């Protein structure tokens, strides 16, 4: 074990009041079983999970409710035993405020597990284990919700596992509390992840504002030469993947490259513990830790079942779960306003801030950009936020892309420092959305063009084939017969013409 203290500071970033201490005074809490659990079928990046149970069916805790549809998708399991009551569109935590398909589960109160099947990972083949993990429903619990099995399965040789324990965004403390209370599981999980990745060493990157967690972890890895801790300064956004890799290793991941191409893979601490629980205990992903903070009376971290109504947590924390309250999901820098408090806890929900309206609505007037370049100084990705803003607000998307709009991690540092109060990130999100939907429309148009071309070709081919058949039939009838047929036809035509002529004449005469 060692604690490394040389760090490579990245450009930009901000030092903000972290507001973390309010939610770390009490241990992680559990609440009583909710009356119903609402499980959105898409809680991950990728395709919607496919429902595998019938309405009215009784299910056990940990039983598969919906399986991953294809590779980039994740399964959903029953967080407790009970009855599947419905599949319908319900409000979910999403910035759009639009409903999406959810399974409603009515708990029976018994909390009976299915037969758990721990995996003897030291005995069976690595690939085998990873395949099993693809059925675990585990996704990146730091908030990105990318299916974890995909990150374990890669073609590049991974030497180093980077454990993302930075938790750099203000207010959020779920990873900190998890490390304090489940440090042993985390270290076991890291050993497991090293094995699965075929990696040699692990580095835990953690901000210096978590001394308790650091102490606990350091004690556990005292005799382990393969795992080390790297304490990074509290500078937002140190927890961004590329920033943390740079802080720890001094390696800049080039544009368009992945960390695995540099022999590194990164997992968040909560994800590693979920992996541990799945392999060692046979428990799929059905719970997470969530920070409930802000204006609630007793800010706290909760270990909750997915699908738990957020309002239950807010009430437990002494908050006003009125519908017109303003709640931010995620942190104050990158989070978004929830459409309502009547949404379920999902895999992505790491933190909810009970915010006063003033925290969301801007009372200070937005002024024109004075090109002070403060934003550029603050940008940890070394972008030119003022240019991105200019091109985004004037719908010059191509130019925004040329200024590397898609490298923007939406960290919000630029908006944070802007003296003109411009909500810069909102413009970038808008521009990215427009570009992505344009790309999608283009893809659809390409498919339509192809199908239309194919159809025209097919029609042409059919026409030719028909013509060929007629010609063949003609050739087959003997020339004698043919001339007879033609003669008859000619005769019929001349007769008809005659008739028409005469009729015409008689009409004129009338």
């Amino acid at each position, binding site marked *: 074990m060692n604690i490394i203290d040389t760090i490579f500071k990245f450009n930009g970033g901000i030092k*903000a*009041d972290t*507001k973390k201490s309010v939610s770390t005074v009490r241990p992680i809490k559990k609440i009583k079983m909710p009356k119903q659990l609402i499980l959105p079928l*898409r809680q991950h990046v990728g395709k919607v999970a496919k429902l595998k149970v019938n309405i009215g069916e009784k299910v056990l805790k940990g039983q598969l409710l919906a399986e991953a549809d294809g590779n980039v998708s994740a399964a959903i399991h029953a967080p407790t035993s009970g009855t599947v009551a419905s599949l319908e569109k319900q409000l*979910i935590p*999403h*910035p*759009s405020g*639009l409903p*999406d398909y959810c399974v409603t589960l009515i708990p029976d109160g018994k909390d009976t597990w299915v037969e758990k099947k721990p995996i003897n990972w030291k005995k069976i083949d690595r690939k085998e284990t990873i395949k099993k993990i693809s059925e675990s429903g585990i996704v990146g619990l730091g908030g990105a919700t990318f299916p974890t099995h995909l990150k374990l399965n890669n073609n590049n040789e991974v030497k180093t596992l980077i454990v993302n324990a930075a938790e750099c965004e*203000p207010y959020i403390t779920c990873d900190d509390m998890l490390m304090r209370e489940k440090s042993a599981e985390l270290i076991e999980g890291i050993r497991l992840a090293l094995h699965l990745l075929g990696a040699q060493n692990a580095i835990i990157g953690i901000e210096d504002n978590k001394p308790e967690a650091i102490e606990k972890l350091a004690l556990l890895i005292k005799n382990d030469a393969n795992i080390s801790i790297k304490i990074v300064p509290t500078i937002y956004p140190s927890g961004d993947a590329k920033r943390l890799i740079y802080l720890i290793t001094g390696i800049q991941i080039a544009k368009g490259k992945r960390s695995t191409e540099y022999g590194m893979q990164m997992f968040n601490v909560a994800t590693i513990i979920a992996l541990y629980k799945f392999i060692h205990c046979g428990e799929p992903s059905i719970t997470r830790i969530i920070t409930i903070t802000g204006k609630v009376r007793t800010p706290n971290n909760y270990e909750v079942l997915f699908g738990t109504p957020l309002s239950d947590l807010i009430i437990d924390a002494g908050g006003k779960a009125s519908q017109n309250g303003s709640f*931010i999901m995620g942190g*104050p*820098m990158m989070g978004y306003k929830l459409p309502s408090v009547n949404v379920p806890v999902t895999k992505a929900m790491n933190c909810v801030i009970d*915010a*006063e309206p*003033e*925290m*969301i*609505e*801007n*009372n*200070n*007037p*937005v002024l024109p950009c004075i090109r002070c370049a403060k934003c550029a100084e603050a940008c940890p990705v070394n972008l030119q936020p003022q240019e991105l803003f200019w091109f985004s607000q004037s719908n010059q998307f191509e130019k925004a892309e040329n200024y590397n709009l898609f490298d923007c991690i939406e960290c*919000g*540092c630029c*908006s*944070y*420092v*802007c003296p003109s*109060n*411009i*909500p*810069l*990130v*909102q*413009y970038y*999100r*808008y521009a*990215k*959305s*427009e570009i992505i*939907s344009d790309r999608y*429309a283009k893809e*659809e*148009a*390409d*498919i*339509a*063009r192809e*199908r*239309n071309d*194919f*159809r025209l070709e097919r029609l042409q081919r059919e026409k030719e084939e028909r013509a060929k058949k007629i010609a063949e039939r003609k050739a087959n009838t003997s020339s004698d017969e043919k001339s007879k047929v033609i003669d008859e036809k000619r005769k019929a035509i001349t007769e008809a013409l005659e008739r028409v002529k005469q009729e015409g004449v008689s009409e004129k005469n009338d």
Partner: protein
Amino acid sequence: MLTSVLVVLFLALLIGSILGFSSIKFKVDGDPIIDKIDSILPQTQCGQCSYPGCKPYATAIAKGEADINQCPPGGEDGVRKLAELMGVEYKPLNEEHGAIKPKSIAIIDEDTCIGCTLCIQACPVDAILGSAKHMHTIIEKECTGCELCLPPCPVDCIDMIAIQENTENWKWKYPVFNIKNQKQRVSH
């Protein structure tokens, strides 16, 4: 003197033959300007432009026979892009060719469908499945919303349904409201 003339002659022949060869070998299929126009058109293949499809309309624009504002599915945005490509002034969509509608897809009422196959013959992108006398159904993903299958249906069992906004196709909106920026959020 003579050698230099010969060298020049040789070079001329060589380069000429390379050029000649490559013009055969790397012959560009189709007309690049038509393809460029076609890539802007939405490929709905609806015929509202009064041409039998997007490609024929693109060809007509390239020849200068058609105006740039005849494609309602392409919308004002499409006209703008065509104007930029063709180096002409933007003009609003010609209403004679129809109004802009939200993108829709066709849905067959499968209880009413008599399986006459007329819609299949009308669909420009082969997005309808079914065989004679059997109920037909539309592949949602392939349907361009051209409405060409509506008129031929003898029992009027095809409806156009506008695509609803959902969590998948939802877009972040242009920031019109005063949204608190990050600093005010944190320091609050």
